[in-house]
Structure formats: C-alpha cells, structure tokens
C-alpha cells in the first residue's frame, strides 16, 4: 500500500473519530440504546464509494475499535462490530447496483442492516425480550441513514466539482 493511500485512510478514520466524539456530547432525546444519528457513518459511506472494499473495511474496523475505547464503553464494541460487518457487507454488495447519485438509498439499507446486526447480538446476549426495540431501530435507522446518506452524497458531489478526488475514482 502506498504511503499516500495509507495517509488518506488514516485521515478518514481520524475524521470519523472526531465526528463520533462530538456526537457523543449531543444529548440523545430517545432513551432507547442504539438510536442515534451515526454521523461518523458519513465518512464510511464516502469511503464506500471512493475506495476499494478492503480499504473500507480497514477504516471501519479501526474506527469502531477506537470509538469503543474513546467512548469508554467496551460492551458497545460487540454490538457495533456485528452491526458494522453486516452493514459494510450489504453496502459493498449494493454498491454494484446503486450508483453514486443514489447514495442515500444505499445508506438507508446500510443503517437498517446495522441495526439488524445489533439486535441479533442483543437477542443472543440478553434474551428475546429486546426484540421489542427492533421496529423503533428500523424507523430511526431509515431516517438517520437517509440523513447521513444525503450528507455523503453532498460531499461526493462537491468533491467531484473541485476534482479533488479525481485520482481516487
């Protein structure tokens, strides 16, 4: 791997972590664990459409591990790991079908897949009582996914205009 690419990936991971830490400070109006905006995923979605599959996995893997440390919540690591694996796998597949002008749609699917992974781990660890959260997570996932997707789409569009990411396409 070239040093340039490695720097870019490290930069993306760093940006995602900063967004994650800032988002931690925003009080959550919904008292259900798992419901949040997930602004850090803007970076994931951006990377999804500009880098190769293994590079995206690296960024996401490092990000969720460091995020668990920064957030001081190691139990969350298992949930976000399961969610991310499903989400990244699903979105890498959808990338073949959905072009970059419909990023938000693929982001919605990613968010729903992420929440499904989380619930699966929760059911496995805590018991099936928690399945009552699933519909709420799906609705919040659709909304948050559409929002982060739109943000990523905006970024992609602006970057294309300025030709910054030309050599990455």
């Amino acid at each position: 791997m070239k040093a340039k690419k490695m720097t870019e990936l490290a930069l993306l991971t760093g940006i995602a972590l900063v967004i994650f830490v800032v988002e931690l400070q925003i009080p959550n109006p919904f008292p259900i664990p798992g419901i949040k905006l997930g602004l850090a995923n803007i970076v994931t979605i951006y990377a999804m459409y500009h880098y190769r599959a293994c590079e995206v996995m690296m960024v996401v893997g490092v990000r969720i591990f460091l995020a668990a440390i920064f957030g001081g919540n190691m139990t969350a690591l298992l949930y976000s790991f399961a969610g991310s694996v499903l989400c990244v796998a699903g979105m890498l597949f959808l990338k073949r079908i959905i072009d970059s002008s419909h990023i938000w749609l693929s982001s919605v699917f990613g968010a729903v897949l992420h929440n499904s992974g989380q619930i699966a781990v929760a059911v496995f660890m805590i018991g099936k009582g928690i399945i009552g959260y699933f519909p709420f997570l799906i609705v919040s996932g659709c909304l948050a996914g559409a929002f982060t997707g739109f943000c990523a789409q905006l970024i992609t569009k602006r970057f294309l205009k300025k030709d910054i990411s030309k050599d990455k396409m």
Partner: protein
Amino acid sequence: MKIKVLYLIAGIIFVAGIAGCILALSAPKTGVVRISQNGMVVREIDISKAEDQFIEMEFEGRKNLIEIKNGEIRVSHADCSDKVCVNMGRLRSGIPIVCLPNRLVIEFAENDFDAVVN
C-alpha cells in the same frame, strides 16, 4: 429499474417499522412485569398488586436498583456511565426497559404467564 425496486423495498421496510412501533406501543398491559437477566427470567411481579419496594439486581459486580412504586416500575439507580435504563423512566408500553451492560430486561409479560404466576 433496479433502483425503483430498491426504493420500493426501502419503503416497505420503513412502513413495516412504523407498523411495528404502533403495535409495540399499543401492546396490552397485563400488570405482570417480568424481570430477566442474562436471558433468564429472574422474577415475575404483578406490579398493580405489589407493595412499594426496591429490588437490587447485580451482574458482574455492577448494580441496578429497580423501584416499584404506586403500581409502576422503573430503574431508579444504575452504576453504569450512560444511565440509559434510568432515563427510560417508568415501564409504560411494549418497549422494555433494558440495561445493555448488565444484561437486564424489564418488560410486561404476555398474558399466558398469569397462569405461571398464580
């Protein structure tokens, strides 16, 4: 064409989610509350009849204090950092109160559990 199908799927997922929410929120209250930890039912209490009390739940050294008062149940104290379970307030509908780190779930039991309790 494929995009249209995906729009449709996303729409269906969203509507199904909303329908599930409404279903969960309108789930009938039975008065019998089930407290489970680590996947196993620990207690079942009819909170409409139970007297005011505190129940302490412990998991790997961490504690949740459950309060039953005036026929309502809530987690009044937790020694975790995020306090999600405390912030959820009283148990009112089909949305269970959970504490993820301590693997605690408080929910309304289904009707068929009345027989077990009695």
